[in-house]
């Protein structure tokens, strides 16, 4: 399988400038500087690259939306990796920080940006130090700063640590947090491309997305477009976790069947149990049943079965689990992380948690499932930001696909009461 991000990820000392350069690093800069910035945007558009953080929005198109002739502009790299199940950006930051810097430099050149921030979740303190070491090396070598490689292009990149809030992975909440505020989402429009950081045009991209850009500039957009499927181009880092024998981050070509990821790459189900369910794209996307294991892992195919590719976190659940427990754990998470700004999310997550908790502890009444469905309906598309919809996904999908698990716990109560 072709790899463009992980082919050398375990190379010793790849995090140093010396080794990164030996591996062909920073060659993209000269190639890019020989072109007009707009040409780089067109290359990224032609490559078919889509955002790898969760939404899957076409990257080149996002860059082309920047408000015309408004400066300064900013780049924010979203390194707030917090989606349950997702641990791919952490590996990139830890082992290949210069790849991210090169991607950020290329993006900044393409978008005429002179200041970039890397917003890392607060718990990534160690990675922030690695990143700062890499930034220092890049300045010393003239890859950052004034007049980079004699091109006349200037760029400063800074790290910025969050302080524990899942919601800051949502781009507008990230901006508020970076501006020294509470991490609450903003009303859109205006979108960040028009008014983002400090009310200026801003590009916000995920770590993995930016890390793909050097490959596109070095090898041409057609090389990237040749990978994957017709509409889902390129590769994807998939974080496989849960009940597999070999959990880990795997780079796959988009379109690889889920079965191959679970059974070949990740070694199959632990204790040779049966697969019961999987969540393909992090906790915010609907879970699906085991019979859909032959679905190709790409944006369209996963959408066709009612779920999403999301951040690329494949959570594998075997047949020893009652799904109510999974739904309860995830709801507890969303309740904890709801920022409280809007009512449906703040209240809805708590109500769902209370009902699930009662069902799980054997106090569930038959009408509780209907109540859960009703709350889901009242939250869907009615919350201020996508966190509300994310909180609905595990609950409603678990009811729709694993109703028997709910009924089993509720029937148990009735049987116990009868005795």
């Amino acid at each position: 399988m072709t790899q463009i991000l992980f082919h050398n990820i375990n190379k010793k000392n790849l995090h140093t400038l010396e080794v990164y350069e030996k591996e062909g690093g920073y060659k993209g800069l000269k190639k890019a500087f020989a072109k007009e910035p707009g040409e780089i945007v067109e290359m990224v558009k032609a490559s078919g690259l889509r955002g790898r953080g969760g939404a899957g929005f076409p990257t080149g198109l996002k860059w082309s939306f920047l408000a015309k002739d408004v400066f300064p502009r900013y780049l924010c790299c979203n390194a707030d990796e917090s989606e349950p199940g997702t641990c791919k950006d952490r590996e990139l930051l830890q082992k290949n920080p210069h790849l991210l810097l090169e991607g950020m430099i290329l993006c900044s050149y393409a978008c005429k940006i002179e200041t970039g921030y890397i917003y890392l979740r607060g718990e990534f303190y160690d990675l922030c130090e690695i990143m700062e070491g890499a930034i220092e090396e890049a300045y010393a070598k003239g890859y950052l700063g004034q007049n980079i490689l004699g091109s006349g292009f200037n760029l400063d990149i800074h790290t910025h640590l969050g302080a524990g809030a899942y919601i800051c992975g949502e781009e507008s909440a990230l901006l508020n947090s970076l501006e020294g505020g509470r991490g609450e989402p903003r009303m859109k429009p205006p979108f960040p491309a028009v008014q983002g950081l400090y009310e200026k045009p801003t590009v916000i991209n995920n770590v993995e997305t930016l890390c793909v850009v050097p490959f596109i500039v070095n090898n041409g957009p057609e090389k990237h477009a040749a990978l994957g499927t017709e509409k889902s181009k390129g590769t994807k880092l998939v974080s496989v976790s849960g009940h597999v024998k070999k959990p880990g981050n795997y780079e796959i070509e988009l379109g690889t069947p889920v079965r191959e990821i679970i059974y070949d790459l990740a070694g199959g189900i632990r204790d040779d149990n049966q697969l019961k369910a999987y969540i393909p794209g992090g906790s915010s996307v609907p879970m699906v049943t085991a019979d859909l294991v032959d679905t190709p892992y790409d944006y369209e195919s996963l959408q066709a079965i009612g779920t999403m590719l999301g951040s690329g976190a494949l959570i594998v659940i075997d047949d020893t689990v009652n799904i109510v427990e999974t739904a309860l754990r995830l709801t507890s998470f969303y309740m904890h992380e709801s920022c409280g700004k809007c009512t449906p999310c703040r209240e809805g997550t708590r109500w769902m948690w209370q009902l699930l908790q009662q069902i799980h502890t054997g106090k569930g009444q038959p009408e509780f499932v209907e109540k859960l469905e009703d709350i889901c309906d009242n939250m869907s598309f009615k919350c201020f930001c996508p966190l509300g919809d994310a909180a609905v996904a595990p609950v409603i999908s678990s009811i729709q696909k694993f109703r028997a698990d709910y009924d089993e716990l509720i029937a148990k109560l009735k049987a116990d009461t009868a005795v």
Partner: protein
Amino acid sequence: MFAFSKEAEEKIEKILKKYPEERKRSALLPLLTLVQRQERHVNPDAMREIGRRLDLSPAYVQSVCSFYTMYSSKPVGKYLILFCVNISCQLNGCDVLLAHTAKKLNIEIGGTTNDMKFSLHREECLAACSGGPMMRINDTFYENLTAAKIDQILDSLD
């Protein structure tokens, strides 16, 4: 009275250079983080001092501070154990291990040992899902935990 350490002052100088002068409010989280790391909590005195430096009211500083889980109002132990209980870790048995850790330290989850050595907190996903069960102690991630491994890690900390 609260005062930043000399080391922290050097860091503040660098931090303030990251943001446009008229946007120095951006330094709020980084400065709160410095306080948390120095004092192991953030108290009102420190908030006032940060407000003074960034031209922010103490009330504003507190409203931001209270939003983020990594700032604590009471001092945490020398070793802050954040134990992930989210989905991937749960599927791999973190609940039993968290209970084991609490029992070993003889504290409630969320509590701190009397000698202020350990605090144990339940934590949401820390982005180490393929290494679950996992915990973070101060800045270090410990993955693929077992009861024996936890005992060994805790015993090795002085």
